[in-house]
C-alpha cells in the first residue's frame, strides 16, 4: 500500500470514528432527555407525601420543581433516593433564602445612596423600584420561614421511569395531577398550579407612600 493510500485510509478511519462518536453523543443526549417525565401535584406537598407517592414506583428522581412565596425554583442533583433529593433541596433552599436576605441589604443601601428622598418623592418610577426591592426581601423572608418550618415546597418532580409500568402507576395515582413526558406533543399548557403563576405582591408595601418606602429601606439598612 502506497504512503498516500495509508494516509488517506487513516484520515478516513479518523473521520468515521469522529462521526460515530458524534452520533452516539446525540443518541445519548436525546435518550437522556426523552426518558424524563415530570410528575405534578395539585400544590406544593410536604416532603413526606412526595416520598410516599414516589417511593412505591420504579422511578429515579432527578430534580424537583418548587414554589414558595412567589419564588419558583428547581433543584437538581444526583442522589440515591427521592428522600435524599428532597432533604438536599430543602437544605439548599434554606441556604439560598438566607443568602438572599443577607445580600438584599447591600442592594437597599446602594439604592438609597443613589437616590435621595426628594428624588424618590418626585419620581413614581423610583417608587416602583423601591417597592420591588422591599418586596423581594419580604418574599425571601417568607420563603425562609416556610422552608425552615417544613412547609411543602415541591409541586412537581422530574423522574426517569425504570419501565413502562412505572409511568402507568404514576398516571393512575389519584395524588398525581399530571404526568408529562418532555417530548410528548400533547399535554397541558403548564404543570405548575395556576395560582402559582402570578407575580408576588405584598399589599402593605404596595400601599406605602414614597416617604414610608424610604423610611423602611433606611431602617433595614440601619438594622444590619
Amino acid at each position, binding site marked *: 500500500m502506497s504512503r498516500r493510500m495509508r494516509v488517506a485510509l487513516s484520515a478516513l478511519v479518523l473521520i468515521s470514528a469522529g462521526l460515530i462518536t458524534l452520533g452516539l453523543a446525540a443518541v445519548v443526549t436525546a435518550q437522556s*432527555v426523552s426518558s424524563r417525565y415530570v410528575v405534578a401535584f395539585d400544590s406544593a406537598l410536604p416532603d413526606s407525601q412526595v416520598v410516599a407517592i414516589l417511593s412505591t414506583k420504579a422511578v429515579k428522581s432527578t430534580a424537583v420543581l418548587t414554589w414558595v412565596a412567589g419564588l*419558583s425554583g428547581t433543584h437538581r442533583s444526583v442522589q440515591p433516593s427521592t428522600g435524599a433529593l428532597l432533604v438536599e433541596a430543602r437544605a439548599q433552599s434554606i441556604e439560598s433564602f438566607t443568602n438572599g436576605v443577607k*445580600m438584599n441589604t447591600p442592594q437597599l443601601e446602594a439604592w438609597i445612596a443613589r437616590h435621595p428622598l426628594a428624588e424618590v418623592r418626585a419620581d413614581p418610577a423610583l417608587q416602583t423600584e423601591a417597592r420591588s426591592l422591599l418586596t423581594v426581601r419580604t418574599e425571601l423572608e417568607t420563603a425562609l420561614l416556610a422552608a425552615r418550618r417544613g412547609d411543602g415546597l415541591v409541586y412537581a418532580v422530574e423522574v426517569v421511569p425504570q419501565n413502562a409500568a412505572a409511568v402507568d402507576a404514576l398516571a393512575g395515582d389519584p395524588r398525581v395531577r399530571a404526568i408529562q413526558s418532555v417530548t410528548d406533543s400533547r*399535554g397541558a399548557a403548564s404543570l405548575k398550579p395556576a395560582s402559582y403563576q402570578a407575580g408576588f405582591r405584598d399589599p402593605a408595601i404596595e400601599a406605602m407612600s414614597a416617604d414610608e418606602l424610604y423610611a423602611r429601606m433606611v431602617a433595614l439598612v440601619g438594622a444590619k
Partner: protein
Amino acid sequence: MKIRGKLVIALALALTIGVASVAAASYYPANGNLTYSGQTYANSYFAWTTSGGWVTEQGGYEHRLQLQDYYFNSCTAYTNLPNGYDDCPTAGVLDPAGYKIYSFGSYSLKNNLTLNYYYFGSWQWSGGSGNGSSSTMSLRAKEVAAMYCPFWNIWCMGAYQATEPPLVSGSFFKNSGTQGFTWYGR
C-alpha cells in the same frame, strides 16, 4: 411660513423622540446587577424601563448565566418572575462543551411585565472545583418561547433572540469576597 417651519421642526423632533423611544424599547432589562458571594451563591436584580422588540407571541424571557463546567455541580435556582421557571435541571445537558448554563426565566413575560420593577433571581450551588479557583462568567438575556414541544416546560423552551454582547461578563473568583457586576441603560 415661519409657523410652517416651526411645525416642521416640531414634527421632526417628535418623530426623532418617537423613533428613539421605540429603538430603546427592548425584550431585555435595561438596568440590573449580578452579585456573586465569592462562595456558592449569586443573585441578580434586573428591571425593564421600556418593553418592545419581542418577536414571539408568548414573549418568554430567560436570564442565562454561563460558567465553566468544573466550577459547580448541583444547582438550586429561584426567581420571582411572573410565570417563572428555572432550568438548573437542564444545566450541562445541552450546553456548549466545557460550560454549564444556569438559567431562570418566565414562560410568558411580555404581557405581564411591570416597568421599573426590579425582578429577582438566584443560584445556589454545591460541589465543584476547590478553593481559590476561578471561572469565566457571562450573563445573557434571551427571548424564549416553547419551541421543542408546545407547553410550558423547561425542556420545551428555545431561544429566539439574545443579547450580544452579554449584559455582563468577567470572572468569578472563589474565596475572594463579594463580587458585583452592573449594567445600566442597555
